[in-house]
């Protein structure tokens, strides 16, 4: 019986970690519902049969390989809507990420299907799926149920854990020919995955000093760099400052950036939007410095300092250097 259809995003021959988490989650839920778990992989010649079959290791029983442009939402909507309509899948599942939102939204319109986004947990109630979604800056969690099927579930970044099902397990692969809708071909990828700014490695650092808009200007990052150097760590950044061109994309934390869990995460001038929180909340110790006492980051920091970065950061750097004997 058709059950759950999960979208598996890939780039340069590797599946996205959030997508693998979603495939694992789909398999877990399908097992509970007693239905089939399937995955969809969209792309050109770069999508090999072997690659698709490997999703079996994460619990997918069936994998559909569709020849359509990858990286944009609408072509995947065409593929998944066709599969849901023709094969009766009951739920479409997406890991955290921008494309999942766009595809899930398109399916909502196309199939008149209920959609829940930023989902942190999915459970089975009376043979149906219920999605848990934190709302209003995570101050409450809503249980969202589906009036009809299909239902669309879009996960929050890192919400679904990757759990290898069986070593060497292989999914059955079916290649599809899908007719793209006319408007799907009206958006064309000119360049994908451009890296802006220098390449830095923040994922292996024990200490991260992360800077946000509160640093005031690109030059404000010098203070963050000095503190990071004193602490023996690296510098990270929020999406807002990366989009503004103040810092490198490769140092970005959160949705469409990196996920980190250092021993110390020191957030300087970061308000703490959900999109940032999801990339760093697993850090062991979170210190936040922000001049706005109402900044959401104080809701999930272990130590919060309400004050002026320009006064605090240089003195903190000097104190750390002195303590470390340098």
């Amino acid at each position: 019986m058709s059950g759950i259809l999960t979208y598996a995003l890939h780039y340069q021959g590797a599946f996205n970690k959030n997508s693998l988490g979603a495939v694992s989650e789909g398999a877990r839920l399908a097992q509970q519902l007693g239905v089939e778990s399937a995955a969809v992989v969209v792309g050109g010649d770069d999508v090999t049969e072997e690659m698709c079959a490997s999703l079996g290791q994460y619990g997918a029983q069936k994998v559909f390989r569709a020849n359509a442009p990858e990286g944009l939402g609408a072509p995947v909507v065409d593929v998944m809507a066709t599969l849901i309509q023709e094969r009766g899948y009951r739920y479409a599942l997406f890991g955290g990420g921008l494309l999942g939102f766009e595809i899930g939204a398109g399916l909502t319109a196309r199939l008149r299907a209920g959609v829940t986004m930023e989902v942190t947990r999915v459970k089975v109630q009376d043979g149906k799926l219920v999605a848990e979604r934190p709302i209003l800056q995570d101050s409450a969690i809503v249980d969202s149920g589906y009036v009809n099927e299909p239902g669309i579930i879009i996960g929050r970044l890192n919400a679904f854990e990757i759990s290898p099902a069986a070593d060497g397990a292989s999914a059955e692969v079916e290649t599809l020919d899908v007719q793209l809708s006319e408007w799907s071909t009206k958006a064309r990828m000119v360049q994908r995955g451009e890296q802006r700014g220098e390449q830095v490695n923040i994922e292996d650092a024990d200490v991260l000093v992360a800077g946000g808009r509160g640093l005031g200007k690109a030059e404000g990052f010098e203070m963050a760099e000095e503190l990071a150097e004193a602490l023996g760590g690296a510098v990270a950044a929020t999406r807002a400052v990366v989009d503004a061109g103040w810092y490198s994309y490769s140092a970005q934390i959160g949705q469409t950036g990196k996920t980190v869990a250092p021993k110390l995460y020191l957030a300087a001038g970061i308000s703490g939007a959900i999109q940032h929180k999801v990339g760093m909340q697993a850090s062991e110790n979170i210190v936040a410095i922000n001049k706005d006492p109402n900044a959401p980051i104080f809701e999930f920091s272990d130590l919060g300092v309400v004050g002026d970065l320009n006064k605090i950061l240089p003195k903190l750097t000097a104190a750390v250097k002195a303590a470390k004997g340098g």
Partner: protein
Amino acid sequence: MKICVLVKEVPDAAVEKRMDPNTKRIDRSGEKNLNPFDTHAIEAAMQVKEGGIVDVDEVVAVTMGPETAVRALHKAVSLGADRSVHLTDPSLAGSDCCATGYALARVLEQEAPDLVLLGQQSDDGECYTMGAIIADHLRMPSLTQVIKMDVQEGSLRCERQAEYGYDTVEIDLPAVISVGDAINEPRYPSLKAIMGAKKKPLESKSTADAAIETDRVGEPGSQTAVLAINPPPAKQAGEIIEDEDTDETIQKIMSWMDERKLLA
């Protein structure tokens, strides 16, 4: 060229937002404001209009919401929109994303714009999905979280950050574009524009006027249902230091870090 900008009235940022346990909807009483993300969409429309590359005949602000939502339209007009359309009907209350997207798409169909602009998210519901839902109803290409948009005759060249870096996408018009807040710095309305906003044409439409099937909207027409509202798992509140004497603050931070062996 005609541009429609979708706007929304949301609770003011300073208002503590909560769920109404009876209606299971966001409590939207209290001070309200134009959704801050929408000001970037209006600014993007104005930059296209003023940019001189294409001729823009008009910029139309469109909203769906109760009577008070006209204030969001007035604000949009004070920021440069030429006129506005207010979809309002008691039967729309309680619409989920699926129902709201359908209803707004019907209004937009009547307007037949060449470009629909909206903010990447609302400050209250934070669903991030409205642009792509509306685009599929309108059978238009779309892109969300756009931070750079160059308009050409008949098409757009857009940039946005996605999972693997920055993507550049070329899109034929008509199209639906949701913009990120990095796309521009919205202007402040002039006093004259604020005073004049109420004089610009504002059309109020019911569901019947917009040919909306009422069984597809409101709470009865929604496809999701709030089954329960629960508090988040309890988390121990962090320590807070108000910086008054910075030397003392530094000492406190240092000993806090030292206790946790973070200075080793």
